[in-house]
């Protein structure tokens, strides 16, 4: 288990403790996006991509 797996495990546990949790797929996808763009200076584009993920799950009827 590397630190990626550990981070995902932590996210899964935290999400599981939430009453209104969101699909873990959305969290995992967001996390992988953040890992790939962790040294990206253009933060607003990363946030736009996070919104896209949210839109995919919220408007695609997954939630």
């Amino acid at each position, binding site marked *: 288990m*590397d*630190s*990626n797996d550990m*981070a995902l495990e932590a*996210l899964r546990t935290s999400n599981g403790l939430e009453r209104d949790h*969101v699909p873990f797929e959305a969290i995992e996808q967001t996390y992988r996006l*953040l*890992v790939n763009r*962790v040294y990206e200076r253009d933060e607003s584009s990363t*946030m736009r991509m996070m919104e896209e993920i949210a839109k995919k799950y919220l408007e695609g009827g997954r939630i």
Partner: protein
Amino acid sequence: MMVLQVVEMVNFMPFKGCHKLEIAASEMQNVTLVFGDNMRGKTSILNAVRWVFYGVAMGRHSKPIPLWQLPNKEAGLEGDWRMEVRVKFIADGATYDLRRQALKKAHIACPERDEDYDVHVNMMKDGMPVAAHHIPTEINRYIPEQVSRFFLFDGELLQEYESLLVEGDEQGRQIKESIEKVLGVPALINGRDYAGVLLKKMQKVQNQDMKQFAAAASLIDSRKVKQERIDIIEKDLVQLKARSLRTRQQREELDDCLEKVEAIYSAKANADALEKELKRCSEEHDVVAEKKRSLVSSSWKVLASRVVLQRLNDLQGQEKEIAVRIDKRQAVKLEIEQLKRILSYSECPTCRQPVDGAYRNSAGERLGFLEGGVPDSQDEEEINEIRSEIRNLNRLISKSPIDELRKCTSDIQGLDLRSIRIEGEIERLRQEVKGYDTAEIMRWRANRDVLIKEEARIEEAISNSDADRAKLLKDLRQIDVSINALPQANDVKSSKYVQYFSVLERVFSDSVERLRENLRTRVESAASEAFKKLTTQKMYSGLKINNNYGLAILDEKMSVVGIRSAGAEQIVALSLIDGLGRTGRSAGPIVMDTPFGRLDTKHRDNILAYLPTTARQLVLLVHDGEIKSRADLAQISHRIGAEYTIHHIGPRHSEIREA
């Protein structure tokens, strides 16, 4: 996973001309050795790798070396001011060719500033050029600069890791940040922060969407008030943090000045002490010189000593003869006394018998003979005169002063040399002290005290603002729940987004601490495992991690070992780095400069046996003091895939040759 293949340097630091290192890349032969004496260019190789990837080379105390000081000066004086480093590597199946060049501007004759150079960076990926603005992103994907200290490291700086054990230490804080970067914590922190920003944005959209519903009006107003207060607090926090940073920088600048002044004070105290030492030297010099003068003034005795000795010898012979005569005469006088006493008795005083007549006659004859034979003598007077003369002569026969004279001369020369050295040192120290204004120093100290108080005040304000913000955010969550519970909320799209980002923010926020806790446990376990393999002290049971990722050594009773040697410090630091490497994302090759400097041979052997098994590629830049012979490398000989030696050609010219 990244695999480094080739490092090529042209006129980089002492490496005049073109030099190429092919890095051992096979999994079983993954060690590249570069031997070089001190000041030959080992650290320059480390810097070449650093410069090609990040455009920076580090000098002593981790300070960047100005660009214009990097190109080889000898080549420059011959008209070639070009400098270039090129690396080829493979990552995720793609082949990369990265080249960084510094070229002197055409109108500059002799570069003396960074601005005198143009720097060009080119990258090819599988033979296709990568756009300039994508190059840093490509590099950061495989070997991020922020965590470069864990794979491009200077053995001399390993002791910095001890600062992780000190709570509140600035250097420790920076290293902790780097550690968390290599472990991937910033991705979660960014997730928390970005989700917070998006949540706020969506809350504002929801405010607009819901204002048409009367039931939501008061809740929305309340949320707006709290959001405005949060905005104000966040703006204040930005300003406070900027002020905190400025204050800390100002205080650090003063710390540097005062540190220098401390050196000045110390120099002045040393100069004063040396003045006293010089005075003592001068006094001692006078004493020795006086003694020498005295020895020289009595040196005529050496010349007279032969005659005196002859005379002394004669006199001692005469004294002996006279003494024999005196002894004989004394014996005769004693016998005369006895005979006279005998002849004065008519009978024996003991038995009262009358004395025999014949015996009396014989005694009388003997007495007459003896009294007739005792001459008058001047022997006593004569012997006294002789003895007096012997005493006087003995005073003249003293020890030879030659040895003492030599010693005095040598002492005087030693004292002269010492005085000259002390005078030189005093002059140097006085120059160091010259021009410093003590009133200015006092002002620095006062300012520093003010800044320290200011720092504490700002930190307290930040802490209070953080607490206020946290409370307001908690209130906002409650309001969010209340708004989303309204039936009208289901009719607006923004409600779903608020709920989504609210959960996302909490999940990422909770995960940060959860991940940190898990990572610390993993790093502690992996580092302990490495430490037990690296240390020669079998009584140590492992390492214990603190919140900063600082590692303490545990003894056999699981108690923390308080005092650690520099060597132990290095072993702990290497264990931490290995633990991080095995817990975090793979960083690819490890380049180590002078890694065994503080270690004994047993620890060195343990590291040599261990590191090649855990690192994908290992480049060791070592000197003869660390690895003395081929026998030292016997245990990793099967792992060595490439070996080079740095040859000294001149003070500004070294060459890399394949060994």
